[in-house]
């Protein structure tokens, strides 16, 4: 059968060239931003952004600042890991911020102590039922269930009624926020047990964020689940024709995203020692921003958890940098808008230069 083969007709690119991973560009951007703040700080404030310039300093870097940078993005970062997967399959999740609010309220209600300063807890939600001083596993599992349920509802709506993800998750966003306000008539829920409060103590949020990022990086790179996420975002019809159940996969992706959002809620409420109905407002947009800055394409099929982590760091560095330069917080928000749009514009350019139609 070995007929002579013909040339590589239509070859238009250098065959030896391995395409450079998008994440390197994001890392480069992160470094550029860090250097910019460092230079601005040295020039205008006579202070260093990254390094420890105090007398008799024991460490090279300004560890406190670096910790804050990571700590302030780690909770939204947990959400962004799930949002990354949703965007990779070509979807969007607007509900994560509200799911955080609802989950924080519900989980916290199951984590309340019986006595505050020797007196019975006056504001306990389940005072009559006596559900107080419960083991930490109870609020955590109930909290995660909230996210799983919200995510499954999102997933089933999107996969089986075929309404756009934007609409389905917008509905969940509004409803879940309503639920979190109704739960305690708008009152905050406080006084968690010590074991619950330990979850988000100190640098725990960072450890949880990094741990989950590593786990999901491995899942997205080395498992069938990850491969199918990229395939669906790339060409859903092809995946369907390969016999893979696209609806089932979508439900799984949205469920995981919901679960990660609720986990973020547990960590957040534990760290703040309180839950409020307004918790997590705008978190969904921050999470999407992290993913988009990190090179996750809104068109689906491209991006990675590593990219999103870098995107989260960029967001954290910019926030800290503005504070460091003593710039008004309003400038931060205005700049952030420009950065989101800029990231999407870059993604469009990349697609135009790479894609050659369908």
């Amino acid at each position, binding site marked *: 059968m070995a007929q002579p083969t*013909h040339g590589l007709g239509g070859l238009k690119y250098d065959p030896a060239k391995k395409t450079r991973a998008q994440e390197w560009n994001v890392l480069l951007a992160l470094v550029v931003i860090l250097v910019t703040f460092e230079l601005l700080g040295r020039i205008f404030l006579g202070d260093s952004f990254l390094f420890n310039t105090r007398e008799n300093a024991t460490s090279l870097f300004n560890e406190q600042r670096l910790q804050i940078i990571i700590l302030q993005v780690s909770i939204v970062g947990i959400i962004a890991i799930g949002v990354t997967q949703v965007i990779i399959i070509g979807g969007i999740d607007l509900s994560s911020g509200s799911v955080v609010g609802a989950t924080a309220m519900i989980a916290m209600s199951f984590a309340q102590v019986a006595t505050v300063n020797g007196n019975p807890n006056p504001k306990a939600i389940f005072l009559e039922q006596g559900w107080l001083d419960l083991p930490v596993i109870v609020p955590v599992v109930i909290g995660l269930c909230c996210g799983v349920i919200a995510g499954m509802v999102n997933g089933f709506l999107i996969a089986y009624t075929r309404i756009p993800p934007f609409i389905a998750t917008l509905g969940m966003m509004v409803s879940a926020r309503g639920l979190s306000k109704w739960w305690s008539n708008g009152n905050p829920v406080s006084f968690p047990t010590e074991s619950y409060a330990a979850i988000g103590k100190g640098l725990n949020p960072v450890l949880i964020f990094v741990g989950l990022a590593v786990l999901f990086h491995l899942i997205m790179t080395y498992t069938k689940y990850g491969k199918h996420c990229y395939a669906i975002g790339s060409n859903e019809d092809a995946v369907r024709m*390969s016999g893979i159940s696209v609806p089932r996969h979508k439900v799984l992706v949205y469920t995981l995203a919901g679960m990660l959002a609720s986990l973020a809620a547990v960590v957040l409420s534990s760290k703040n020692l309180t839950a409020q109905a307004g918790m997590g407002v705008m978190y969904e947009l921050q999470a999407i921003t992290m993913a988009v800055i990190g090179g996750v394409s809104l068109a689906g099929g491209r991006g990675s958890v590593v990219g999103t982590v870098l995107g989260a760091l960029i967001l954290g560095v910019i926030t800290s940098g503005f504070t460091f330069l003593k710039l008004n917080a309003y400038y931060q928000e205005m700049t952030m808008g420009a950065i989101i749009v800029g990231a999407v514009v870059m993604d469009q350019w990349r697609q135009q230069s790479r894609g050659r139609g369908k």
Partner: protein
Amino acid sequence: MSDIILETRGLTKRYGGVHALEDANFVLHQGEHVAVVGDNGAGKSTFVRQITAVEQRSAGTVMFDGREVNFAGPLEAREAGIETVFQTLALADDLDVPSNLFLGRELFKVRLGPFSILDRKAMRERTMEALKTTAVKIPNVDNPIRNMSGGQRQCVSIARTAAFASKLVIMDEPTAALGVQETAQVENIIRGLKARGIPMILISHNLRQVFDLVDRIVVFRRGRIVASLRKEETDGNDIVSYITGVKGSETAYA
């Protein structure tokens, strides 16, 4: 009986009031390469979609490999041994060549349900083997196929089909968008299938190609099979007159 790999009896497909395919009776023998020709909208692709169960037929029976089959979807058809190259490329642009070849039939190191760990090395090795046996040259299989030319992408698609072909290959206009050299490469793959004795149904508008490659030509017109001719018994003009309706207004048995 045992010589027949695929047989359809009274295969019919209606979309609402439109009779896309009417009473198609078709037989394919072991090792036989058959071309399906006809004008646009004659029912060629519809015919193939019923066999591969991309759509569910309105009426009729399909016999494959000696037994009646009712595939619920393309995956079942594929598991039964029918490999198809679709007219619209069924490739995921952001995945590399091995991932595309093994889409939906990945090899695993550890099975953990949806989170099963892929055996990337084995898939890559088998991809290289498949590309070698089908004589498809892809410079860097680890790049996403988005970066490849139309011809290379089509070759990936066809290599996938040829590599996994076990009992029957169906190609729906595999060279429609290709240049001369790329077309030649695809035709070589088809000749390779013939040499391996794998039966094939080829949908094509290119009569030169049809006469070059297949044993028998089946003509569709207005949803009906109007002729089934051995290559030696016919010529281009004859086929065209069947396609355009000058000849053969009765339903034929293919």
